[in-house]
C-alpha cells in the first residue's frame, strides 16, 4: 500500500489538511453566520475549505498507484542559488547579493571565461541598477555592511 503512494498523493494529503484548517478556523474562530448580519468572516473560507477536503480526497484515491512523480536533482542548483542570495542579502544587501550571485553562477556553474563574465555582468547590472535603483528609486535593503 505505502509503496503505491506517490508525491501527488502526498500533495493531496497536504491540501486536505489545509482545507481542514481553513474549515475549522472558519466555522469556529472567525464566525460562520450571524442572525443579524448573515455570513461572517469565516463563511466563505469555511465552505471553500470543505470543498477542498472533499476534492482532495477524491483525487487522492484516484491518484494512488497511477502517477509517478520524480523531482530532478538539477533543481538543487536553484535551491542553492536562492539560499546563497538570501544569505548574501543579509550581509551585503540585495543588489550586491544579486550581483555576486550572478558572477558566481556564470563563473562556477557555466565556466565562462572571466572576460565574458565581467562583460555580461556589467551590462546586465547596469541595466538593472539604472532602471530600478537610479531611475525608479526603489529603496533596496542594504544589509549589515550598508553599501549601495
Amino acid at each position, binding site marked *: 500500500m505505502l509503496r503505491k503512494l506517490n*508525491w*501527488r498523493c502526498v*500533495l*493531496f494529503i497536504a*491540501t486536505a489538511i*489545509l*482545507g481542514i484548517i*481553513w474549515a475549522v*478556523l472558519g466555522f469556529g*474562530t*472567525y*464566525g460562520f*453566520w450571524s*442572525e443579524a*448580519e*448573515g*455570513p*461572517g*468572516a469565516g*463563511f*466563505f*473560507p469555511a465552505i*471553500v475549505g470543505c*470543498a*477542498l477536503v472533499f*476534492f*482532495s480526497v477524491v*483525487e487522492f484515491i*484516484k491518484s494512488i498507484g497511477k*502517477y509517478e*512523480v*520524480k*523531482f*530532478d536533482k*538539477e*533543481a538543487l*542548483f*536553484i535551491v542553492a*542559488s*536562492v539560499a546563497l*542570495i538570501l544569505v548574501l*542579502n543579509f550581509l551585503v544587501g*540585495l543588489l550586491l547579493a*544579486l550581483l555576486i*550571485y*550572478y558572477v558566481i*553562477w*556564470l563563473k562556477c*556553474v*557555466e565556466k*565562462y571565461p572571466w572576460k565574458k563574465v565581467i562583460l*555580461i555582468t556589467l551590462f*546586465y547590472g547596469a541595466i*538593472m541598477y539604472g*532602471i*530600478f535603483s537610479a531611475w*525608479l528609486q*526603489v*529603496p*533596496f535593503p542594504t544589509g549589515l555592511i550598508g553599501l549601495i
Partner: protein
Amino acid sequence: MMETLQLLGQGFVVAFSLQNLGAALFGGILGLIVGAMPGIGSLAGCALLLPLTFHFNPTTAIIMLGSIYYANMFGGAFSAILINIPGDAPAIMTALDGFSMTKKGQPGKALFISNYASFIGGFIGMVILVFLGPALASFGLNFGPSEMTVLMLVAMTSISWLVGENPISGIVATCLGIMISTLGIDIVSGQIRYNFGSIWLLGGINFVPLVIGFIGMTQLFDLVVQDRAKEKISYVDVKIRFRDTLLTKDEYKRATRPSITAGLLGTFVGFLPGAGATAASFLCYAVEKKLSNGKTLVPLGQGAIEGLAASESANNAAAAGAFGPLLALGIPGSGTTAVLLGGLMMWGLNPGPMLFSTNPDFAWGLIASLFISNILSLAISLGCIPWLQKIVRVPIGVMIPSILVICFIGAYSTSNSMFGVVVMLVGGFLGYIFGKCSLPTAPLLLAFVLSSTLETNLRRAFLTSNGNLAVFLQRPITDVFLVIFLIMVLVPAGRAIYNKVKKN
C-alpha cells in the same frame, strides 16, 4: 452625435502640435520600458512617471499621461511573451499562449500579434467610450453587490473551461487560490483572519510577487535541467529573421476576429466599477476558448494566435473602458485609473458628472490624445520588436541567473519589502511541485484574483438584504447572469450523467 465628433475633432487639433506629439512620444517610450519591468506594471508605472508630467503645461501633461498609461499596457505583455514573467496580473493569460509561441521559435510573431490585438482592443474601447461612455458608465452603476456576485460566479465557473483533462485537479487548484486570497484582514467586517500570528500576513498576499513566483521562477527548474543536459543552448535555436515576424494573411484573419470580440466584451467589463483588466482578459480568453473550439491550429494555451489576441485585446479594451466611469462619474475602476485621477486633479481637472459640461476642451483633448497614444504606442513597440526578439537567443546559462535576479528585484519592488521576495520564492517552489504533480497553476492564480471580489460582494449582498437569499432573484441583471450560470453548471453535468447512463 455630430456635436460629439466636432468636439473630438477639436481635441485632435489640440493634440496635434509638435510639442504635444513629442511629449506623447517621450511618455510612450518611458511607459513602455517601465511597463515591461516585472513587478512595476501599469499601476506603479503610472504612479512613478506621473511627476514627470508636472514639467509641462496642463494639456501637454495630460496627453503625456495618456500615452504613459497606454504604453504601460503594451509593455506589460513583453516580459510575459519573451521570458514567461507576467509583468502584471492581466498578462497571465498572455503568457499562456505568447510564451508557447516563443518556445516554438516565433517570439517576434507573438509580439506582433500582441501589439496588433492591443491596438484593436484599445481602438474599439475608445470608440465605444466616445459615443456611449456616459450612458454605459451610468448603466455600470446598476451593478450592485448581488449583480457582481453572480457575475463573478460565472467567471469562476468558466475557469473550468481552461482546465484540461482532469477537472478535479483544477477545482483543487481553484480552492487553494481562493484560500490564499482569504489571508489577512477581512475587509467586510474588519476582522483579522488566517494570519497565524504573523503581522506580515495581516494585509494578505500581494498578487504580483505570487505570479512572478508561480510562473516566472517556476520555469527556472525546467531551464536548469535543459542547461545541465546541454540539450539546448537557448530558448530558440533557429535563427530569427525579421521577416518571420510579419504575419501571413491567414494569421491576420486568425488574430482579427478574436481581437474584435474581445475588444467589445473587454470594454464592457472595463466599464463595471471594480471589475478590472484582469477579469476582462481572463473572461474574454475563456469565451474565446468556447468560440473557437476546434477551429484553431493548436489548442488555446499551447501557442494559439486566437488566445493571445483575445487576452491582449481585452486587456487594452478594458483599460480604455475604465476611462468611462472615471471621466463621466469620477469613479476610478482600477488602481491605475485612481492614480490617473490623482494626476488629473493636480491640474485642477475634476473628473465627475460636471466634467463634460465645465471643461469640454480638456475632456475631449484627453480622449483625442488617447487615440493618438494608442497609435504611437503601437508604432514604438513595433519598432522595438527586432531588438527585443534577440533576447530569446541569449544562452540558457545566462538566462537562468538573469531571470532569477529579475524575479527577486521585481518581487521586492512591488511593496519595497522582503516579504514580496518570500511570497515569490514560496510561489516558485510550489509551482514546481504542482507542475511535477500535474496540478494546474493558472486556475489558482485566477481564483486568487477573482475570489476577493466574489466574497466581498456576496457578503455585502447578504448584509444589505439582512441575510435574505431572495436578493439574488429580485433583480433583472442578476437573473440573467443566474440563468447563464445555471446553464454553465447544469449542461456539462447533465451531459456527463447522460453519457454514464448510456454506457451502462
